[in-house]
């Protein structure tokens, strides 16, 4: 039974992958590139130690972002605002960390707490708007993303928090080495794997436990499956919205930290601002399941990283963006088709099994 379920749950991503590979092959043929060479070189490069290290690092970021999104998705809350939450969280973390003179563990812990807190507060605004004022979180989080960008540039450009970190780059003052969490280089000797890689594994496991092994997780899933039934079962929906949104925002607050503490050491205006949207895509691919999300994040990162090699081959790197887009759309459609098929076949199976039982009695 369970093997069958796992098998079924792999059908949709499988279809997504195949369709997008096929479509990519067509595109490559049209632009006159050799399909086998391109795929082979993507694969060869993508599985080289250095690329794998980079991939895991990027996947760490994507994983956290997708996890933040999926906490909301689990109860049908669409937190489109991970972007705004993580940029503000990372900025706050950078400001605090650069002013701390604590031992590493303490400094990193404080940074994490601050970033999570800020992310949660920003998400909390949407929760309040939804509960108290009935504003859809989809719209409010989008608006708050735009507002967050405005706040960031105000702080970095117009307050003393922003300094010129290197010629022509403005950002927060560099974080001292004691505040960084660079990680260790165990796959490729030159490229450390972010310390956050391990933290995010812990968070992923924690997420799974929270959802599947705690009362809170049950309440959350129940609300997602049937808000009315959950309410009848004693779940307070308003409180759930607050808690879930705050939790989602707190995890979102972490999204920028692997890069901040593992790489840049400063929140600059070069800091990427669209990891939240990537998180949405990966949460969809991974069906809000931490293992699925991890695989999705690695796939996404693989396409991102190996496309760097493609440019050298004269193939536009954006081919990977198309693959990603196609995978997402095909996968969401196939998930739905598979789900329906599953429900139907289960109903039929149950009826059949019962008919047999009755006959044998």
């Amino acid at each position, binding site marked *: 039974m369970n093997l069958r379920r796992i098998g079924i749950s792999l059908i949709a991503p499988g279809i997504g992958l195949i369709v997008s590979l096929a479509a990519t092959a067509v595109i490559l043929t049209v632009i006159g590139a050799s399909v086998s060479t391109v795929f082979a070189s993507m694969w060869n490069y993508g599985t080289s130690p250095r690329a794998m290290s980079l991939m895991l690092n990027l996947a760490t970021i994507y994983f956290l972002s997708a996890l933040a999104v999926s906490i909301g998705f689990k109860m049908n809350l669409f937190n489109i605002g991970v972007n705004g939450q993580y940029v503000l969280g990372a900025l706050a973390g950078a400001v605090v960390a650069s002013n701390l003179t604590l031992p590493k563990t303490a400094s990193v812990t404080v940074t994490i707490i601050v970033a999570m807190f800020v992310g949660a507060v920003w998400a909390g605004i949407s929760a309040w708007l939804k509960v108290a004022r009935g504003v859809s979180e989809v719209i409010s989080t989008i608006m708050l993303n735009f507002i967050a960008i*405005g706040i960031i540039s105000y702080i970095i450009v*117009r307050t003393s928090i922003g300094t010129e970190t290197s010629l022509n780059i403005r950002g927060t003052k560099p974080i001292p080495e004691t505040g960084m969490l660079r990680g260790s280089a165990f796959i490729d000797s030159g490229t450390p794997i972010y310390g956050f890689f391990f933290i995010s594994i812990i968070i992923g496991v924690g997420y799974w436990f929270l959802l599947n092994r705690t009362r809170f997780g049950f309440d959350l899933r129940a609300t997602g499956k049937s808000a009315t039934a959950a309410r009848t079962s004693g779940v307070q929906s308003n409180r759930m919205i607050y808690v879930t949104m705050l939790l989602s925002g707190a995890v979102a607050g972490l999204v920028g930290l692997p890069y901040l503490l593992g790489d840049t050491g400063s929140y600059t205006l070069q800091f990427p601002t669209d990891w939240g949207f990537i998180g949405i895509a990966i949460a969809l691919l991974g069906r809000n399941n931490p293992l699925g999300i991890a695989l999705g994040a690695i796939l996404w990162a693989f396409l991102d990283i190996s496309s760097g090699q493609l440019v050298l081959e004269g193939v536009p790197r954006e081919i990977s963006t198309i693959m990603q*887009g196609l995978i997402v759309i095909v996968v969401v*459609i196939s998930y739905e088709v598979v789900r329906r098929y599953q429900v139907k076949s289960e109903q039929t199976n149950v009826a059949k099994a019962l008919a047999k039982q009755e006959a044998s009695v």
Partner: protein
Amino acid sequence: MTYLKSRRFIGAAFTAITMLSITRTITGNGDLTSTVTIAQALVFASPIALAGLAGIWAERAGVINIGLEGMMILGTFGAGWAGWQWGVWAGVLAGVIFGAIGGLLLAVAAVTFGVDQIIAGTAINLLALGLTKFLAILLFTNAPGGGQAQSPPIKGEIPTFTFNSLVEPLSSLHEKGIFFVSDFAGILAGLFYNMSLLTIITFLLFAITSYLLWKTAFGLRLRSAGENPWAADSLGVKVVQFKYAAVVFSGMLAGLGGAYLSIASTIYRNGNTAGRGYIGLATMIFGDWRPGGTAAGAMMFGYIDTLRLIDTGNQNVKGLILLGAVILFAIGALMLRRARRNSAIGFLLLGSVMIGAYFSATSFPPEVAQVAPYITTLLVLATASQNLRPPAADGIPYRKGDHH
């Protein structure tokens, strides 16, 4: 009904002009109601308004369209490409067609396969972004004047109209600085100054939408798909067909909005929608899923953007702050009269804060104006959400015969 509506419209316009006029008088800043400001605001507002209108079509038929951004991106690309190849009108057409393809994709995913509409829309946004970037590289890199992130210039121009016989006297009346009268004149003149044919088309599309959706049998059926598709089905309305039509048309409108953008900049550039699809969606909610309110919301975005950009001596943002305060006070007073004390106090307090800011600072950083429309949207939704009336079956996947 019509009589009531037009009276409400006139009332709203009157109030808006009065508040603008008060602000203009206190600040002495003629830009606030000048002809150029209004004419420009219309240009900025139009693509957003088209996106909002696109949202109305889809959501009135019960399909949430968060893929507007993606369809708009497709539109900007289509217009840039075809406009470069065959001229500006081909660009308009291609923008519409590309948008329609995005709409069709949403319809297939959300209507036929019943995928969660927000998820399907998000996926379309991702796909559109990747696809256009890729195609830009393929098609534009070696074209003269193009590059991997932008198309060569679009050939030809959309005609624009200025009714000088109207604009000149009105503009000079505007210069006189008479309370209300001058402001009204400036605003009115803005509607006849440098009006692009595409803006006129946008106006027409709003009028046509109001008529089609609310005055015809076609519109009633389309809206029934968003209110209670099961009831509609039971009366023989072809719900799925209507949903398809609405979502594809929604894609066309969003594509047109994208084309408008590309044509206004004479080229396609990666990223030049700058989130306007999402903003369009917000104006639609802001406008209670109706054309009038949506247009007003889009105009607010266009107006604030314009004031920020044509700012002389950093006074316009200040003016906006005061305008905000005036509006908050007006709402506060209204609430007081309706005996909603808590809300009233909130508004009056916020208004006072803004007045304080206005008088204590000599100028404001541009970030204030940058975020103002988003904050305004949130404020409007926070105060009005309870009174908004989204289509009852908006966002609910419809399958024939699934209803209990």
